[in-house]
């Protein structure tokens, strides 16, 4: 492998990592606050992709504007889903079967609504963005870069919100110690609803961004669920930084894995990684680091 090839792979890994982080972060905060494994995340991503597609087809809206618009729209949508369905789940400090089934069922509903409206053929948003930046032998796809910048910017804003606002502190407090959150007066139900809205907003946003890069159908999003699990296991639930770290590791392994594994097996990488990590470090890499400052 030449240096140029190496750099090109590194760049595509980095761009991929930004996207993966945007996909995983919504699941992470929802899991952290509510201990719900949100399988419907894939469905929200699919809807985000079609949302952007329809805006582009009918209103000729720039897909980047469409992606940004998906944030408030899916935030409200997520709050509604929480109000309608999620809030009736029994409260638990561990994932429950009922929550898993509810979210799985809801994903199936979303998927089938997708098939009903858009059929099962693949769609894509075709824009003029398919160029690469001219940097000699190094290639940076423009669309990928734009998507990366958007994803990272939104993650940075989320990080800021989580650290500097009262809502963000209540999210962190519920993730780290729900009992302590309760005794200072955090309203679990209210923070959960906002968190579910935020998680859904990021799912829709990630889907809308990916629609600028890949073609999609109503099953879109499924392959990213396992990847999101891997990222969560690698990076832990503590922070956006953890998610970014997990996303980077996964993207690096997947990208450079192509050198050693036939491309057809690439989806198996994330699954294999999930199994290995769960066997070797059941608490995740973040759990290993965290043990240093465990409270007595």
């Amino acid at each position: 492998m030449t240096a140029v090839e190496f750099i090109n792979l590194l760049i595509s890994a980095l761009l991929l990592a930004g996207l993966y982080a945007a996909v995983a972060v919504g699941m992470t905060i929802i899991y952290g606050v509510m201990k719900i494994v949100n399988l419907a995340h894939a469905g929200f991503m699919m809807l985000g992709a079609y949302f952007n597609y329809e805006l582009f087809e009918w209103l000729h809206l720039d897909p980047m504007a469409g992606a940004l618009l998906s944030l408030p729209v899916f935030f409200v949508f997520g709050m509604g889903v929480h109000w309608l369905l999620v809030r009736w789940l029994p409260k638990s400090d561990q994932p429950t079967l009922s929550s898993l089934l509810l979210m799985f069922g809801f994903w199936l509903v979303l998927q089938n609504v997708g098939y009903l409206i858009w059929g099962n053929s693949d769609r894509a948003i075709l824009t003029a963005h398919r160029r690469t930046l001219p940097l000699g032998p190094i290639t940076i796809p423009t669309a990928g870069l734009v998507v990366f910048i958007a994803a990272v910017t939104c993650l940075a804003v989320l990080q800021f919100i989580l650290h500097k606002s009262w809502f963000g502190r209540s999210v962190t407090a519920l993730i780290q110690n729900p009992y302590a959150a309760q005794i200072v007066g955090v309203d679990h139900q209210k923070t959960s609803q906002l968190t579910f809205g935020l998680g859904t907003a990021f799912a829709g946003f990630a889907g809308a961004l990916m629609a600028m890069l890949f073609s999609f159908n109503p099953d879109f999003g499924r392959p990213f669920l396992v990847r999101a699990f891997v990222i969560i296991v690698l990076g832990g639930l503590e922070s956006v930084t953890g998610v970014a770290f997990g996303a980077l590791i996964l993207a690096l392994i997947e990208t450079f894995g192509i050198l050693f594994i036939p491309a057809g097996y690439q989806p198996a990488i994330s699954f294999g990684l999930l199994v290995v990590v769960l066997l070797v470090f059941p608490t995740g890499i973040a759990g290993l680091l965290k043990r240093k400052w465990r409270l007595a």
Partner: protein
Amino acid sequence: MPEVPEKLLLVENLEVRYGATQVLWGISFSVVKHAVTCIIGSNGAGKTTTLNAIAGVLPVKGGSIRLDGKPITALPSRERVKRHIALVPEGRQLWAGMSVEDNLLMGCYLPALRSRAHLNLSRVYDLFPRLKERRRQLAGTLSGGEQQMCAIGRGLMSEPQLLMLDEPSLGLAPILVEEIFGLIRDIARQGMTILLVGQNIHYTLQVSTYGYVMEVGKIALGGPSEMLLNHEHVRRAYLGIA
């Protein structure tokens, strides 16, 4: 004629159970305004359960809790924080991965308190200068004594009229135990109403004015702490003096 001490908290026939196991069997006691009241008792007697029930973290099966004469038994915990009841829980229960300052600020989480968050913060820093030095540090990296200060500080941030402390000296070195009880005495001297659960029975009875002895979910004995210190049963069972 001696003045009748005014009662801030009145607990009557309180019953609590975890699933099928009943833990509190109708306990009654009161907390006098601007004084320290303590509950002592052996492990598993139900002291933590009592404080959690008052804080609204546990559902109550029977009996009533009154604050300033008004029933609060059915209120959710945040409504009790709003009525200025603060719990400094057993085992500190800090957010290990949050900074000391964010841990303290969370004590002012309720919207009604937020505008005074920074004022309260500077008060807590005056009381615990050590926390100010370490305010950017993660709470999980504090020493045991500092963690306890942080937990007390968080309780004070919510401007309590009733401060409940659950075993504040648990697991601390003797010199720190002394420091923590000194602090409790200082806070009490400023007029705070305190309900103290203590493992260190000698110190606990010395710092408090009134005390109750709890035994397997019932109040066995109650009265002025001085009287309890000299009570034959207390001396034999808890202080190891014949």
